């Protein structure tokens, strides 16, 4: 009974998958959407109950209180035994709330957003499947089971990016996401293989105990394992050099971008590192790499976001950049700060995406029916403040939180990360500070381009506010964004103390006024700069970006550091060439050529030998004579020798 309660957060959405997949065709949109949403709400409810129960447990028991096993092994072969085991501890309980809470809001929003889509039921099947998979990832008590969730969320991501699959571009974006993620996943799998070979176990508890017990002797192995796991994280959490899939993933419906590609799935890498922090802390060399990669990602992606025109692409690069902050925090060992930023980011970035979805929805549905222009291009927007007042307010709240304006949630969580960086790793601090400047600038730019000035297209002129079913979740998320900072206020630190049994020692510290002031200045200054530069830009749609005056620096940002082009030219082209070379030259010509060559050889020899059997009696006679003479000679010699 207890077990059923513990895993019911997973089972509820799975039930939705079953029902909507089988009966969805015969159900009304309302029934499908509300069924799926309410099941996630139920999942959230149970998570809340479990969270409360866990809170009621004594602090030193919270790590083991929620460890359950279903009693049936999933894989059992030889020494390898992986049970269906789940773990609800402060870390996973927090994550469950984020996933089901934000997930439920986005489900409800989707009822409005996806209204009228011919594959409405399928959308909610995927969405439910995603929530279930994400919960498997979060609640797993072993590396391998976590990997199951890890890959399944990747599948949902693939399916949802390519949801409108009749446009081949969407399908290709989905495939790109899956394949790039798979590269990381292979590293993850290798990490698991090495873990099992080293520790003979795959459950977190056993492995961590092994790390603690064997200390020095396994240091090299742990360094290798953590590095492999981190490569896995760079795939899922879109860190350089594997981040290239995330901007393309914006091809999916906007609620998907909010749920999967901002709030939950992409944070799985950070969650995984927090979960396995025992190993990462035992591998300082890996941690240094993690911190540096995170900070570089924050910078590179933040710089790219400066010049994008697609409203979702800006947010996508911003997400990569913010994920870089979290990864850097994990690399610095500041898991609480990383998780704190993960939670607040889930609030404000989901809010931003959903608000952007509301904008796109308004542009698409109320503009001209045959609009050739791109409804996601910010150059076609402008002045939407008046048309979409509610959307504007919530977008503004989300944007200010992202930029780090106090007292919104993003300010506090970002502040903790940079404080840790300042204390422990100056290069990382510098990189993060610069990307914070970029962040504030592109937020300002986006706000101006979308909401201020005059409408720059018919679509923008005819935009109307979205229905209540879409705006209600926005309001809830906006409230969370405003209040989210309270989760872990400096000097109070509720979240930190709550998480500390799972992610290690935590001690809150009072607000560093100097640093906070600096970052407030950065936020406001960046916003103001964005405002100033773009205030009068694009008054007619064909005008170029004011920043294009920067020349190559602009091009570098606009083309995302040319990484996509590089991969396309080297990896993709190379693979195509190799593949067609192997298929046509080596396989058909070489290997199959040898096989057919043997056949031809046999035929040739047969033809040649066959000529001797021409039917000429005299030829046979000659052969016979030669044979007889040879035999006689042989026997004469042998006979002579024998005597």
């Amino acid at each position, binding site marked *: 009974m207890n077990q059923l309660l513990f895993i019911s957060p997973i089972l509820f959405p799975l039930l939705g998958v079953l029902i909507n997949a089988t009966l969805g065709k015969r159900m009304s949109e309302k029934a499908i959407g509300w069924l799926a949403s309410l099941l996630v709400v139920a999942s959230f409810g149970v998570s809340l109950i479990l969270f409360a129960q866990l809170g009621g447990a004594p602090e030193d028991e919270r790590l083991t209180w929620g460890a359950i096993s279903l009693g049936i092994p999933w894989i059992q072969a030889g020494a390898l035994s992986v049970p269906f085991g789940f773990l609800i501890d402060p870390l996973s309980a927090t994550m469950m709330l984020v996933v089901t809470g934000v997930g439920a809001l986005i489900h409800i929003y989707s009822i409005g957003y996806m209204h009228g889509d011919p594959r409405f039921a399928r959308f909610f099947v995927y969405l439910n499947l995603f929530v279930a998979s994400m919960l498997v990832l979060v609640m797993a008590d072993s590396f391998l089971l976590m990997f199951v969730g890890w890959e399944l969320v990747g599948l949902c991501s693939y399916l949802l990016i390519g949801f409108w699959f009749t446009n081949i571009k969407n399908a290709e974006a989905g495939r790109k996401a899956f394949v790039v993620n798979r590269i990381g996943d292979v590293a993850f799998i290798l990490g698991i293989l090495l873990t099992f070979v080293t520790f003979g176990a795959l459950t977190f508890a056993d492995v961590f105990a092994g790390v603690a017990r064997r200390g020095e002797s396994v240091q090299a192995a742990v360094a290798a394992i953590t590095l492999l796991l981190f490569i896995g994280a760079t795939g899922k959490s879109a860190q350089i050099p594997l981040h290239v899939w995330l901007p393309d993933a914006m091809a999916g419906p906007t609620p998907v971008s909010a749920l999967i590609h901002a709030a939950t799935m992409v944070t799985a890498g950070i969650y995984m590192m927090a979960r396995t922090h025992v190993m990462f802390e035992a591998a300082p060399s890996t941690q240094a790499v993690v911190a540096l990669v995170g900070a570089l990602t924050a910078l590179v992606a933040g710089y790219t976001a400066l010049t994008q025109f697609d409203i979702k692409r800006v947010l996508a690069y911003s997400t990569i950049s913010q994920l870089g902050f979290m990864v850097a925090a994990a690399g610095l060992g500041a898991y609480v700060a990383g998780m704190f930023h993960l939670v607040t980011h889930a609030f404000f970035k989901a809010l931003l995406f959903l608000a952007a979805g509301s904008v796109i929805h308004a542009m698409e549905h109320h503009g001209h029916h045959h609009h050739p222009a791109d409804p996601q291009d910010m150059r076609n927007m402008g002045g939407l403040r008046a048309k979409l007042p509610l959307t504007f307010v919530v977008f503004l709240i989300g944007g200010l939180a992202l930029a780090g304006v106090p007292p919104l949630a993003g300010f506090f969580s970002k502040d903790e990360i940079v404080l840790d960086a300042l204390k422990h790793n100056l290069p990382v601090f510098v990189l993060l500070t610069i990307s914070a400047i970029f962040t504030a600038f592109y937020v300002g730019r986006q706000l101006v381009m979308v909401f201020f000035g005059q409408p720059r297209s018919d679509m923008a002129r005819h935009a109307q506010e979205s229905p209540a079913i879409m705006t209600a979740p926005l309001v809830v998320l906006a409230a969370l964004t405003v209040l989210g900072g309270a989760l872990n206020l400096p000097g109070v630190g509720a979240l930190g103390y709550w998480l500390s049994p799972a992610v290690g020692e935590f001690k809150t510290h009072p607000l560093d006024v100097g640093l906070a002031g600096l970052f407030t200045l950065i936020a406001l200054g960046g916003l103001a700069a964005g405002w100033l530069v773009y205030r009068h830009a694009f008054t007619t749609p064909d005008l170029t970006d004011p920043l294009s005056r920067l020349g190559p620096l602009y091009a570098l940002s606009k083309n995302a550091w040319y990484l996509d082009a590089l991969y396309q030219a080297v990896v993709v082209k190379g693979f195509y060439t190799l593949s067609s070379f*192997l298929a046509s030259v080596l396989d058909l010509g070489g290997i199959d050529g040898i096989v057919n060559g043997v056949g031809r050889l046999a035929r040739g020899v047969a033809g040649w030998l066959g000529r001797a059997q021409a039917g000429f009696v005299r030829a046979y006679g000659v052969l016979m004579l030669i044979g007889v003479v040879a035999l006689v000679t042989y026997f004469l010699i042998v006979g002579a020798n024998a005597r």
Partner: protein
Amino acid sequence: MLSTITFLPLIGALIVVVLPRAAGRAMRSVAMLASLAAFLVSLLALAGFDMSQAGYQLVESQQWIPQYNIGYKVGVDGISIWLLMLTTLLFPIVIAASPGAIHTREKEYYALMLLMETATLGVFLALDMFLFYVFWEFALVPMYFIIGVWGGERRVYASVKFFIYTMAGSALMLVAILFMGVTAGTFDLERLAAQNSLWSANTLLFLAFAIAFVIKVPLFPFHSWLPDAHTEAPTPGSVILAAVLLKMGAYGLIRFNLSLFPEASRQLAPLMIALAVIGILYGAIVAFAQSDAKRLIAYSSVSHMGYIVLGIFSLNQLGVQGALLQMINHGLSTGGLFMIVGYLYERRHTREMARFGGVWAKMPLYGALALILVLSSVGLPALNGFVGEFVILQGAFQANQLWAAFAALGMVLSAVYLLTFYQKIFLGESRDPANDTLTDIDWREALAVAPLIALCFVIGLYSLPFFSAMSASVNSLLGAAGMVMR
């Protein structure tokens, strides 16, 4: 009981032969009944199978050619039990899916199919090397005709190539079998395995068997008959070829090479592992370049079967068990994929992927089923392929970390070519107006693949019974061969 399973299809074949030529419906029913009966009896055999026991069970033994100590001996153990089940399960499915693909000479077709079942079952169950060889070679004949008579345009080329290539491979095996049988005075597999260290020509004998088996698997670079055979064979032929016939090779490697020549297995394992890993990557890369859907899946078989050989020659418990499970998995998912492609071929009479596109929009159920099979083949967790692949990789990693790491790269490549396959046919917009009239699969077609898909989920989520049935036998095999599991 095992003889009943083996020869039930043969009886069915005889009945089909005496039926009048016009009675197509009756032939289909007889074939269906005979194969279903074999399946039901094999379920009984499974129920009576003691999972904790390592040795052969349900053994039936009789003298056959006493002058040469050749016996008729069949039995089943943990290594062959799931292959037996896979075979008896797949034949009814294939026969159910046949009416759409086979329109001419039905009498010969159904008789040959049933003969084929008897031959393959015999291969998996025979415990006498001579008997094994008879079944082994006999299995070639029906497949030769199925490809050659009901195949595509280049069917004659493909069938002759298939026949000669695999026949040539097994010639040396016959020599080895005769040598061993005459030297040891028995062809009984159990008794031969008991004296496995006696062979002076250990390595040569190993190679003689291995060549026959790796051609059948097929292991790189002996694979070139496979794409032709698969592509030209009619759908049911492709399914049986992929799901059952290839397994005969992998099964032979375990049953003969590992148990009879442990010393040589150890010595030559690095070579086999290297070829297997090259095959995994090579098959995947070459599959990507194919434009014909069936050829692509054929090359994917080369890649997937590479995993199986890799597992076998890891020579540890995880590797061999993973390989055995992966044999079943490959039979389910690749067999299913061939059926799926067959459905499309029956509608459009082409397999060129470039001429499809957007099929999922036209055929929602079909697209969903195909996606599940593709994902199973990609090795997505919660489906069967992942369990097998992971266990194999774990075993291989214990044997050789570097090669295992290369093999793991196959996971990326399989995603690349299989998702491309799916995208070209099912996603995007239609590239040919002929696709506009496509109709979704009917319940009969869906029902035929449903068992395969259901089993993909079952193995993916609950692999325990599959592993536990084989573990005792694998244990004793490795133990007897002195390869105690690391």
